[in-house]
Protein backbone atom coordinates (compact mmCIF):
# COMPACT_ATOMS: atom_id res chain seq x y z
CA UNK A 1 0.00 0.00 0.00
CA UNK A 2 1.28 3.45 -0.87
CA UNK A 3 1.98 5.57 2.17
CA UNK A 4 -0.65 8.24 2.63
CA UNK A 5 0.65 11.69 3.48
CA UNK A 6 -1.42 14.60 4.68
CA UNK A 7 -1.55 17.40 2.13
CA UNK A 8 -0.19 19.83 4.74
CA UNK A 9 1.95 22.71 3.78
CA UNK A 10 4.76 23.76 6.06
CA UNK A 11 3.20 27.13 6.33
CA UNK A 12 -0.17 25.80 7.43
CA UNK A 13 -0.99 26.73 10.99
CA UNK A 14 -3.47 25.26 13.44
CA UNK A 15 -5.77 28.20 13.08
CA UNK A 16 -6.32 27.30 9.42
CA UNK A 17 -7.53 23.75 10.19
CA UNK A 18 -11.14 24.76 10.57
CA UNK A 19 -11.11 26.00 7.01
CA UNK A 20 -9.94 22.64 5.73
CA UNK A 21 -13.07 20.61 6.56
CA UNK A 22 -14.65 21.59 3.27
CA UNK A 23 -11.50 21.11 1.22
CA UNK A 24 -12.03 18.14 -1.21
CA UNK A 25 -8.39 17.13 -1.07
CA UNK A 26 -8.55 16.88 2.70
CA UNK A 27 -11.84 15.02 2.65
CA UNK A 28 -10.32 12.49 0.28
CA UNK A 29 -7.27 12.09 2.52
CA UNK A 30 -9.36 11.58 5.65
CA UNK A 31 -11.52 9.01 3.86
CA UNK A 32 -8.45 7.11 2.77
CA UNK A 33 -7.18 7.02 6.33
CA UNK A 34 -10.50 6.16 7.97
CA UNK A 35 -11.26 3.24 5.65
CA UNK A 36 -8.36 1.31 7.14
CA UNK A 37 -9.03 2.10 10.77
CA UNK A 38 -10.12 -0.86 12.83
CA UNK A 39 -13.78 -0.72 13.85
CA UNK A 40 -14.98 -1.61 17.32
CA UNK A 41 -14.12 -5.18 18.27
CA UNK A 42 -16.42 -7.88 16.97
CA UNK A 43 -17.42 -11.09 18.69
CA UNK A 44 -15.02 -13.75 19.91
CA UNK A 45 -13.08 -15.53 17.14
CA UNK A 46 -14.29 -13.20 14.42
CA UNK A 47 -11.81 -11.97 11.82
CA UNK A 48 -11.35 -8.58 10.21
CA UNK A 49 -12.39 -8.17 6.57
CA UNK A 50 -12.72 -5.35 4.08
CA UNK A 51 -16.39 -5.05 3.23
CA UNK A 52 -17.83 -5.85 -0.18
CA UNK A 53 -17.72 -2.21 -1.25
CA UNK A 54 -14.02 -2.08 -0.44
CA UNK A 55 -14.65 1.02 1.62
CA UNK A 56 -14.87 -0.17 5.22
CA UNK A 57 -13.47 -2.87 7.44
CA UNK A 58 -15.73 -5.20 9.37
CA UNK A 59 -15.61 -8.18 11.73
CA UNK A 60 -17.11 -11.49 10.62
CA UNK A 61 -16.61 -15.23 10.96
CA UNK A 62 -15.72 -15.48 7.27
CA UNK A 63 -17.26 -18.88 6.65
CA UNK A 64 -20.69 -20.41 6.23
CA UNK A 65 -22.03 -23.95 5.90
CA UNK A 66 -25.20 -24.69 3.97
CA UNK A 67 -27.08 -27.52 2.32
CA UNK A 68 -29.16 -28.01 -0.80
CA UNK A 69 -30.90 -30.61 -2.90
CA UNK A 70 -30.96 -31.31 -6.61
CA UNK A 71 -33.60 -33.25 -8.53
CA UNK A 72 -31.70 -36.04 -10.28
CA UNK A 73 -33.85 -35.86 -13.40
CA UNK A 74 -33.58 -32.07 -13.70
CA UNK A 75 -32.48 -30.64 -17.04
CA UNK A 76 -29.08 -29.05 -17.58
CA UNK A 77 -28.79 -25.45 -16.44
CA UNK A 78 -27.55 -22.85 -14.01
CA UNK A 79 -28.74 -22.79 -10.39
CA UNK A 80 -28.19 -19.91 -7.99
CA UNK A 81 -27.41 -20.49 -4.33
CA UNK A 82 -27.90 -17.48 -2.06
CA UNK A 83 -27.93 -16.48 1.57
CA UNK A 84 -24.24 -17.09 2.21
CA UNK A 85 -23.91 -13.53 3.45
CA UNK A 86 -20.71 -12.63 1.62
CA UNK A 87 -18.90 -13.14 -1.68
CA UNK A 88 -17.07 -16.44 -1.19
CA UNK A 89 -13.41 -16.81 -2.10
CA UNK A 90 -13.37 -20.60 -1.84
CA UNK A 91 -16.12 -23.21 -1.79
CA UNK A 92 -15.95 -26.85 -0.69
CA UNK A 93 -18.69 -29.29 -1.68
CA UNK A 94 -19.81 -32.74 -0.60
CA UNK A 95 -22.50 -34.54 -2.57
CA UNK A 96 -24.33 -37.86 -2.61
CA UNK A 97 -27.58 -39.53 -3.60
CA UNK A 98 -27.42 -43.07 -2.34
CA UNK A 99 -24.86 -45.71 -1.59
CA UNK A 100 -23.60 -45.46 -5.18
CA UNK A 101 -20.94 -42.97 -4.15
CA UNK A 102 -19.96 -39.59 -2.77
CA UNK A 103 -18.04 -36.67 -4.20
CA UNK A 104 -15.85 -34.00 -2.67
CA UNK A 105 -14.82 -30.89 -4.57
CA UNK A 106 -13.62 -27.35 -4.13
CA UNK A 107 -12.98 -24.24 -6.19
CA UNK A 108 -11.69 -20.70 -5.86
CA UNK A 109 -13.53 -19.59 -8.98
CA UNK A 110 -10.67 -20.21 -11.35
CA UNK A 111 -9.19 -23.54 -10.23
CA UNK A 112 -11.15 -26.55 -9.09
CA UNK A 113 -10.50 -30.00 -7.69
CA UNK A 114 -12.93 -32.86 -7.41
CA UNK A 115 -12.92 -36.56 -6.62
CA UNK A 116 -15.59 -39.27 -6.62
CA UNK A 117 -15.59 -42.40 -4.55
CA UNK A 118 -18.14 -44.70 -6.11
CA UNK A 119 -19.31 -48.26 -5.63
CA UNK A 120 -20.31 -50.60 -8.41
CA UNK A 121 -20.81 -54.26 -9.14
CA UNK A 122 -17.09 -55.00 -8.86
CA UNK A 123 -16.02 -52.89 -5.92
CA UNK A 124 -15.02 -49.34 -5.11
CA UNK A 125 -13.92 -46.81 -7.74
CA UNK A 126 -12.12 -43.49 -7.54
CA UNK A 127 -12.20 -40.79 -10.17
CA UNK A 128 -10.72 -37.30 -10.18
CA UNK A 129 -11.62 -34.26 -12.23
CA UNK A 130 -10.23 -30.74 -12.26
CA UNK A 131 -13.33 -29.04 -13.64
CA UNK A 132 -16.31 -30.25 -11.64
CA UNK A 133 -16.95 -29.34 -8.02
CA UNK A 134 -19.73 -31.82 -7.17
CA UNK A 135 -21.22 -35.02 -8.56
CA UNK A 136 -24.41 -36.64 -7.32
CA UNK A 137 -24.02 -40.30 -8.27
CA UNK A 138 -26.98 -42.53 -8.92
CA UNK A 139 -24.99 -45.18 -10.81
CA UNK A 140 -21.24 -44.83 -10.99
CA UNK A 141 -20.05 -43.91 -14.47
CA UNK A 142 -23.46 -43.86 -16.10
CA UNK A 143 -26.09 -41.85 -14.20
CA UNK A 144 -25.36 -38.67 -12.30
CA UNK A 145 -25.83 -34.95 -11.96
CA UNK A 146 -22.57 -33.03 -11.91
CA UNK A 147 -21.78 -29.34 -11.63
CA UNK A 148 -19.08 -26.82 -12.30
CA UNK A 149 -18.79 -23.54 -10.44
CA UNK A 150 -19.98 -20.82 -12.81
CA UNK A 151 -19.57 -17.74 -10.64
CA UNK A 152 -18.80 -16.56 -7.13
CA UNK A 153 -21.59 -14.09 -6.34
CA UNK A 154 -22.09 -11.26 -3.85
CA UNK A 155 -24.30 -13.43 -1.62
CA UNK A 156 -23.44 -16.95 -2.76
CA UNK A 157 -22.54 -18.74 -5.96
CA UNK A 158 -23.94 -20.22 -9.17
CA UNK A 159 -23.46 -23.81 -10.31
CA UNK A 160 -23.90 -25.11 -13.84
CA UNK A 161 -25.45 -28.58 -13.64
CA UNK A 162 -25.18 -31.29 -16.28
CA UNK A 163 -27.15 -34.52 -16.29
CA UNK A 164 -25.34 -37.68 -17.40
CA UNK A 165 -27.35 -40.67 -18.56
CA UNK A 166 -30.97 -40.87 -17.48
CA UNK A 167 -31.15 -40.77 -13.69
CA UNK A 168 -34.44 -41.86 -12.20
CA UNK A 169 -36.60 -39.46 -10.22
CA UNK A 170 -34.67 -39.06 -7.02
CA UNK A 171 -33.18 -36.35 -4.84
CA UNK A 172 -29.48 -35.62 -4.60
CA UNK A 173 -28.02 -33.90 -1.55
CA UNK A 174 -25.16 -31.47 -1.19
CA UNK A 175 -23.33 -29.50 1.48
CA UNK A 176 -21.19 -26.46 0.85
CA UNK A 177 -18.56 -24.80 3.01
CA UNK A 178 -18.04 -21.21 1.91
CA UNK A 179 -14.93 -19.26 2.90
CA UNK A 180 -14.76 -15.52 2.53
Amino acid sequence: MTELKAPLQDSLSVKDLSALVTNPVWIQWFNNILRYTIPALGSANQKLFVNSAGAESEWASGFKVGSFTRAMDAANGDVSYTGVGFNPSVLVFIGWVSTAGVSIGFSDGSSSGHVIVGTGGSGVFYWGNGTRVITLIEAFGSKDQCATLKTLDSDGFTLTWTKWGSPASATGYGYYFALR
Partner: protein
Amino acid sequence: MRICIVKATNQIIEMQSRAVSGTLIGNAIAQGYNEADIEEREVTQAEYEAALNLDPIAIAMREAEAAAKALEQTKLTSIQDNLPSWNVVSNAVDNITNLAEAKTYLKKLSRVVYWLAKNSEV
Protein backbone atom coordinates in the same frame (compact mmCIF):
# COMPACT_ATOMS: atom_id res chain seq x y z
CA MET B 1 -34.45 -23.04 5.04
CA ARG B 2 -36.47 -22.69 1.86
CA ILE B 3 -38.13 -25.28 -0.34
CA CYS B 4 -39.81 -25.05 -3.72
CA ILE B 5 -42.63 -27.49 -4.44
CA VAL B 6 -44.91 -28.45 -7.30
CA LYS B 7 -48.30 -27.53 -5.89
CA ALA B 8 -50.24 -30.27 -7.65
CA THR B 9 -48.03 -33.17 -6.51
CA ASN B 10 -46.20 -31.86 -3.42
CA GLN B 11 -42.92 -32.80 -5.12
CA ILE B 12 -40.02 -30.84 -3.65
CA ILE B 13 -38.06 -29.45 -6.57
CA GLU B 14 -35.28 -27.93 -4.48
CA MET B 15 -34.20 -27.15 -0.93
CA GLN B 16 -31.60 -24.60 0.16
CA SER B 17 -30.75 -24.10 3.80
CA ARG B 18 -29.85 -20.40 3.54
CA ALA B 19 -31.45 -19.04 0.37
CA VAL B 20 -33.01 -15.61 0.27
CA SER B 21 -36.61 -15.21 -0.88
CA GLY B 22 -37.14 -15.75 -4.59
CA THR B 23 -33.99 -17.74 -5.26
CA LEU B 24 -35.70 -21.11 -5.57
CA ILE B 25 -38.60 -19.75 -7.62
CA GLY B 26 -36.06 -18.22 -10.00
CA ASN B 27 -34.16 -21.49 -10.26
CA ALA B 28 -37.35 -23.47 -10.96
CA ILE B 29 -38.54 -21.04 -13.63
CA ALA B 30 -35.11 -21.17 -15.26
CA GLN B 31 -35.48 -24.95 -15.25
CA GLY B 32 -38.76 -24.71 -17.16
CA TYR B 33 -41.44 -24.75 -14.48
CA ASN B 34 -44.47 -22.48 -14.79
CA GLU B 35 -44.56 -19.99 -11.93
CA ALA B 36 -48.27 -20.66 -11.38
CA ASP B 37 -47.57 -24.35 -10.75
CA ILE B 38 -44.91 -23.95 -8.06
CA GLU B 39 -44.53 -22.42 -4.64
CA GLU B 40 -41.54 -21.34 -2.56
CA ARG B 41 -41.84 -21.62 1.20
CA GLU B 42 -39.63 -20.77 4.16
CA VAL B 43 -39.78 -23.77 6.48
CA THR B 44 -38.34 -25.05 9.73
CA GLN B 45 -36.55 -28.39 9.87
CA ALA B 46 -39.72 -29.99 11.22
CA GLU B 47 -41.81 -28.47 8.44
CA TYR B 48 -39.27 -29.66 5.88
CA GLU B 49 -39.51 -33.20 7.21
CA ALA B 50 -43.31 -32.96 7.07
CA ALA B 51 -43.04 -31.82 3.45
CA LEU B 52 -40.77 -34.79 2.70
CA ASN B 53 -43.50 -37.08 3.99
CA LEU B 54 -45.77 -35.72 1.25
CA ASP B 55 -43.14 -35.69 -1.52
CA PRO B 56 -43.74 -38.70 -3.81
CA ILE B 57 -40.05 -38.86 -4.78
CA ALA B 58 -38.88 -38.78 -1.16
CA ILE B 59 -41.45 -41.47 -0.31
CA ALA B 60 -40.24 -43.66 -3.18
CA MET B 61 -36.60 -43.17 -2.14
CA ARG B 62 -37.38 -44.14 1.46
CA GLU B 63 -39.21 -47.25 0.28
CA ALA B 64 -36.34 -48.21 -2.02
CA GLU B 65 -33.85 -47.65 0.81
CA ALA B 66 -35.92 -49.82 3.15
CA ALA B 67 -36.14 -52.56 0.52
CA ALA B 68 -32.37 -52.42 0.00
CA LYS B 69 -31.76 -52.71 3.74
CA ALA B 70 -34.16 -55.64 3.97
CA LEU B 71 -32.40 -57.38 1.09
CA GLU B 72 -29.04 -56.85 2.74
CA GLN B 73 -30.37 -58.27 6.00
CA THR B 74 -31.77 -61.32 4.20
CA LYS B 75 -28.40 -61.83 2.53
CA LEU B 76 -26.50 -61.63 5.80
CA THR B 77 -28.93 -63.97 7.51
CA SER B 78 -28.67 -66.50 4.70
CA ILE B 79 -24.88 -66.45 4.77
CA GLN B 80 -24.86 -66.80 8.54
CA ASP B 81 -27.32 -69.71 8.43
CA ASN B 82 -25.34 -71.59 5.79
CA LEU B 83 -21.84 -70.75 6.99
CA PRO B 84 -22.25 -70.18 10.73
CA SER B 85 -18.53 -70.63 11.50
CA TRP B 86 -15.44 -72.20 9.98
CA ASN B 87 -15.51 -75.02 12.52
CA VAL B 88 -19.02 -75.97 11.49
CA VAL B 89 -18.09 -75.85 7.82
CA SER B 90 -14.89 -77.82 8.33
CA ASN B 91 -16.65 -80.46 10.40
CA ALA B 92 -19.46 -80.73 7.87
CA VAL B 93 -16.98 -81.43 5.09
CA ASP B 94 -15.07 -83.93 7.24
CA ASN B 95 -18.29 -85.75 8.14
CA ILE B 96 -19.57 -86.22 4.59
CA THR B 97 -19.99 -89.94 4.10
CA ASN B 98 -22.50 -90.19 1.28
CA LEU B 99 -23.95 -88.36 -1.70
CA ALA B 100 -26.96 -86.97 0.20
CA GLU B 101 -24.73 -85.29 2.77
CA ALA B 102 -22.49 -83.98 -0.02
CA LYS B 103 -25.51 -82.52 -1.80
CA THR B 104 -26.70 -80.88 1.40
CA TYR B 105 -23.32 -79.30 1.94
CA LEU B 106 -22.97 -78.23 -1.70
CA LYS B 107 -26.38 -76.59 -1.60
CA LYS B 108 -25.44 -74.54 1.46
CA LEU B 109 -22.23 -73.52 -0.25
CA SER B 110 -24.06 -72.71 -3.49
CA ARG B 111 -26.53 -70.54 -1.63
CA VAL B 112 -23.73 -68.38 -0.24
CA VAL B 113 -21.90 -68.19 -3.57
CA TYR B 114 -25.13 -67.19 -5.31
CA TRP B 115 -25.69 -64.33 -2.85
CA LEU B 116 -22.14 -63.08 -3.24
CA ALA B 117 -22.08 -63.32 -7.01
CA LYS B 118 -25.55 -62.01 -7.82
CA ASN B 119 -26.60 -60.14 -4.66
CA SER B 120 -30.00 -61.74 -4.97
CA GLU B 121 -31.95 -64.53 -3.35
CA VAL B 122 -33.46 -65.84 -6.59
